[in-house]
C-alpha cells in the first residue's frame, strides 16, 4: 500500500514537473534516419557524418560569406577561400607536389590531450588500413602510399603527392572522412582484434571538435554537449539534440509547431505545400552542385551512336520536369560542371525540341518505334518515379519506346557497380565542389564510381590528367572549358536539372552557414 502510494505520488509530482519543451540552451533537430556508425574514417551515412562534423575538427575549413552578401539569403561557405582549422597555415613546395601543414599549437582536446602531428598521422593511417575505410579517397587526393606522409615534428606534417593535385587541399576542408581523431585517447581502446579501435569508434567519440557526446539512445536520439575549452571559443549552442523521426510528415508537423528547431531532407512536395507559407518557419531554396542524371549506356547500340544520344537530349521537356517534379526547386543544368562550381561554362546546347529529336533519329537511321530502351531507377525514390513517367512519355512522343524497370535499391547498387543497365536515373552530388573532381568521377574512363555510361574517350582522359597536374589557373581553366565542350557534344549523360536543396528551420535560428555537402556545424548557431 505504501509502495503504490509512493508511486502515485511520484507520478503526480512528475506530471507537475513535466516540461514538454527542451531547455533554453538546446537546439533540437529532427532527422529521418538512424544515427549510428560513427567512425569518421568509415562512416557512410549522412547523419553519422553530421555528428562527426560537430565532434571532430579537420585541418582546414572555408571562409564564410555572410547572409547579406549571399545571393540566397543565407550565409554560405566560400569554397574558393580555404581557412585554417587545426592547421594554422600551410605551404606548397616543389611546384605543388609537396604540401606542408603547420599545425595549431596549444589546442587541448576534451580528453586533456594536446593536439600534435601524431593525431593527423594516426588518422590518415586509419583511413588507409581499416578494411571498410575508403583508401581510394586518399588516392584521388594524390597520396599513393602512406610513406609519402612524413611527420617533420610535433607541429609539422608533410604530404608528398604523385603530382600537384587540385583536390588535395579542398578535400581536407570538405570531407568529414578527413576528420582528425584524438589519437592518444583512441589508442587506449585498441585491441588485438581491433588494432585501430574501429569497433570502439563506431559507438563512441574521441572528440577533437566543439562538441562531445553526452548521451545516446539507440534508434532514438543523440545528444551532443558543448566543449567549453574548444580552441575557437565556447560554442554558442550548449546542447544539440538529434531526434530520430522517420516519418517525413511528422518532421514537418514538429517544425511547424516549433517543437524542433530544424529538420532536413524534406521532399520538395512537402516543402512546397506545407512549409513555404507556414508562420514561424524559414525556407531557403539553394542551388546545389548535385545533378539529376539520365545515364545512357554508351557501349551498346543504339546509344553507342552519338546522334541517338543527342536526339534523346532534345526530347527531354526540361522545364516541365523542373516545375512538376521538383515544384520549381531546381535549375537548368547547362554543363557537366554545375553552375555553382568554379570554371563553369554554359555549354549544354540541348533544349526541348521534339522535331529536332525526330530528325536526328532519322539521320541515325532509326524510324519511329524502332528503338526500345529500358529505363532503370530505384523504387523507393518518388522523384525518380515521377521523372521516369515523364521521360517515358517524352521519348515515346519522338518514337522511342521505353520499358520501365523499377529496381530495389540493393539491386540498383549492384547494377551500378557492374554498370549493367541500358539507361538509368541517378542523383549524384559531389562531396568536393571542384570541377576536376566532378569531371573525373563522371567521365574519366578509369572512374570507379560515377561514370555510369562507361563513357571512354582517350581525348577526354588526356585532358583531365593534364588539368589535374596543371598549376597555372589560366591553363587549367582552358582545359576544363575544353572538357565541358567535349562532353556537351558527346552527351553520354543527359543532365536533367540541378536540384535545389531546401533548408528548413524555425525563423528564430541565427548563425546557420550553408555547406555544399549539407552538413551543419552548430557551434555558431543560436536561437533568438
Amino acid at each position: 500500500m505504501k509502495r503504490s502510494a509512493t508511486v502515485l505520488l511520484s507520478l503526480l509530482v512528475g506530471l507537475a514537473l513535466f516540461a514538454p519543451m527542451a531547455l533554453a540552451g538546446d537546439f533540437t533537430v529532427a532527422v529521418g534516419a538512424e544515427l549510428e556508425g560513427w567512425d569518421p574514417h568509415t562512416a557512410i551515412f549522412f547523419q553519422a557524418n553530421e555528428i562527426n562534423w560537430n565532434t571532430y575538427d579537420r585541418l582546414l575549413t572555408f571562409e564564410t560569406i555572410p547572409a547579406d552578401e549571399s545571393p540566397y539569403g543565407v550565409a554560405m561557405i566560400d569554397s574558393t577561400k580555404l581557412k585554417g582549422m587545426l592547421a594554422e597555415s600551410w605551404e606548397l613546395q616543389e611546384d605543388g607536389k609537396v604540401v606542408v601543414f603547420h599545425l595549431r599549437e596549444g589546442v587541448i582536446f576534451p580528453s586533456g590531450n594536446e593536439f600534435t602531428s601524431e593525431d593527423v598521422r594516426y588518422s590518415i593511417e586509419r583511413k588507409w588500413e581499416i578494411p571498410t575505410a575508403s583508401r581510394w579517397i586518399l588516392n584521388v587526393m594524390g597520396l599513393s602510399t602512406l610513406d609519402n606522409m612524413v611527420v617533420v615534428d610535433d607541429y609539422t606534417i608533410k604530404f608528398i603527392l604523385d603530382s600537384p593535385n587540385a583536390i588535395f587541399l579542398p578535400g581536407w576542408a570538405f570531407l568529414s572522412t578527413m576528420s582528425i581523431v584524438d589519437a592518444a585517447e583512441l589508442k587506449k581502446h585498441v585491441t588485438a582484434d581491433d588494432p585501430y579501435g574501429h569497433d570502439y569508434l563506431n559507438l563512441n567519440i574521441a572528440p577533437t571538435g566543439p562538441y562531445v557526446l553526452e548521451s545516446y539512445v539507440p534508434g532514438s536520439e543523440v545528444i551532443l554537449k558543448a566543449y567549453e575549452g574548444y580552441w575557437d571559443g565556447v560554442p554558442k549552442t550548449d546542447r544539440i539534440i538529434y531526434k530520430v523521426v522517420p516519418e517525413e510528415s511528422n518532421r514537418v508537423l514538429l517544425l511547424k509547431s516549433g517543437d524542433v528547431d530544424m529538420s532536413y531532407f524534406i521532399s520538395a512536395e512537402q516543402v512546397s505545400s506545407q512549409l513555404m507559407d507556414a508562420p514561424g518557419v524559414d525556407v531557403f531554396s539553394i542551388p546545389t552542385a548535385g545533378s539529376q542524371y539520365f545515364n545512357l549506356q554508351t557501349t551498346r547500340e543504339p546509344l553507342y551512336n552519338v546522334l541517338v544520344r543527342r536526339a534523346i537530349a532534345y526530347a527531354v521537356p526540361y522545364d516541365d520536369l523542373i516545375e512538376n517534379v521538383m515544384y520549381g526547386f531546381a535549375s537548368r543544368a547547362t554543363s557537366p560542371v554545375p553552375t555553382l562550381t568554379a570554371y563553369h561554362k554554359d555549354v549544354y546546347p540541348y533544349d526541348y525540341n521534339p522535331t529536332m529529336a525526330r530528325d536526328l533519329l532519322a539521320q541515325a537511321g532509326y524510324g519511329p518505334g524502332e528503338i526500345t530502351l529500358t529505363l532503370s531507377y530505384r523504387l523507393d525514390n518518388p522523384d525518380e518515379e515521377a521523372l521516369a513517367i515523364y521521360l517515358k512519355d517524352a521519348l515515346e512522343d519522338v518514337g522511342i519506346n521505353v520499358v520501365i524497370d523499377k529496381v530495389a535499391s540493393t539491386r540498383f547498387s549492384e547494377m551500378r557497380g557492374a554498370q549493367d543497365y541500358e539507361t538509368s536515373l541517378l542523383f549524384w552530388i559531389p562531396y568536393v565542389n571542384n570541377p576536376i573532381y566532378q569531371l573525373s568521377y563522371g567521365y574519366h574512363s578509369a572512374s570507379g564510381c560515377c561514370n555510369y555510361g562507361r563513357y571512354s574517350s582517350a581525348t577526354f582522359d588526356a585532358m583531365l590528367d593534364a588539368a589535374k597536374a596543371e598549376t597555372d589557373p589560366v591553363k587549367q581553366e582552358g582545359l576544363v572549358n575544353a572538357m565541358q565542350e567535349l562532353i556537351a557534344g558527346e552527351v553520354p549523360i543527359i543532365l536533367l536539372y540541378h536540384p535545389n536543396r531546401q533548408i528548413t528551420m524555425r525563423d528564430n535560428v541565427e548563425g546557420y552557414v550553408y555547406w555544399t555537402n549539407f552538413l551543419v556545424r552548430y557551434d555558431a548557431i543560436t536561437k533568438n
Partner: protein
Amino acid sequence: MRLLFFVIRRLLQLIPVLIGVSIITFATARLLPGNAAIMAAGPLASPEDIARLETHMKLDRPVWEQYFSYVNDIFHGDFGKSWRTGRPVLTELMEHFPASFELVTFSLFIAILIGVPLGVVAAIRQGSRTDQLLRALSVGGISIPVFWSGLVAIFVFYYILKIAPAPIGRIGFSVRPPTHITGFYVLDSILTLNGQALASSLYQMALPSLTLIIAMMSPIVRITRSSMLDVLNEDYIRSAKASGLKRRVVLYRDALKNALLPVITLIGGYYGYSLGGEVLVEQIFSWPGMGRYSVEAIFNLDYAPVQAFVMLTAVLYVAIYTIVDVLYAVIDPRIRY
C-alpha cells in the same frame, strides 16, 4: 508435474525449429538481389575496396561454409555485427526488443480488457442495436489501416488539439530515460521511483497504443462474440439455465470459459506477430522497436540483424504458443498432456 514435462518437451522443440529457421533465413537472405559488400562500401568505393570488404565480410566463401561459420559464432555468443552501425547484433536487438515488447504488451492487454467484455455483450444481446453497433465498429477497426489512423491521430491530437505529445518516441524531449533495469520504461520508472520518466513515458505511449488498441481490439471483439454465440447455443448452457442457476454464473463460469479457447489462440498468434511486426506503428511514432530495426536491416542487405531477428521471433512464437497450450489445460479440464 505432467504439465511441467509438457512445457519442457515444448521448449526442446525449439532446437529443430531454430535450426530450420536459421538455415532458411540464411539462404534466402543471400538469395536476395544485391551485394552486401557494395552496400557497405558506400557509393565512392573502388572495386578493390569492395573486394577487400567481401573478404572481410566472408562473402567470398561458399554459402555452406558461411553458415557453419555463423553457427560456430553463435555458440560463442556472437550473432554478428550490423555493417551499418558496426555494433553487435545481439546488443542492438536487446535494445530494440523492450521498446516493442512494452508497447505491444500494454496495448494488447488493454485491447483484451475492453474487447472481450464487448464481445460478450454483443453475443448476449445478439441482434440488438448494441450488437449491430459493436459489429460495425469492429469491422471499421479491422479495415482502417494502422498507418492512416496513426497519422490522423497525430495530426488531430498533437498538431491541432495539442493534447498529445510530439511523436518522437518513447520519452519526451528533455526527459532522460529511466535508469536501465529491464528496458521497459514504465516498469523501470516505477522501480526507480522516477515520477518524471513515468509520466513522460506513459504520455508518449498514449497515441501509439491507442492506434494499436483500435486495431487489435476489433478482431478480438468479433472472435469473442462468435465464439460466445457458439457456446451459448450449446445444450449444457440450456440445461444450466433450466436448472435455475443464476444467469451471471452460467455466463461467466460456464459459457465464457469455454468460449475463450479460440480467443486465446487468436490473441497468442496476434501477440507473436505484433512483437516484431508492428513496423508501421513504430515508423509513424518514431518508436525504436524491433520491427523497424529489422526492416531497415533488410533494405540495407544487413544479413546479421535479419537472421538474429527471425530466430528471436521463432523463440517468441514457441514460447507464446506453449503458454497458450498451458492456458488451454488450465481452462479446459478435459485437456491433459
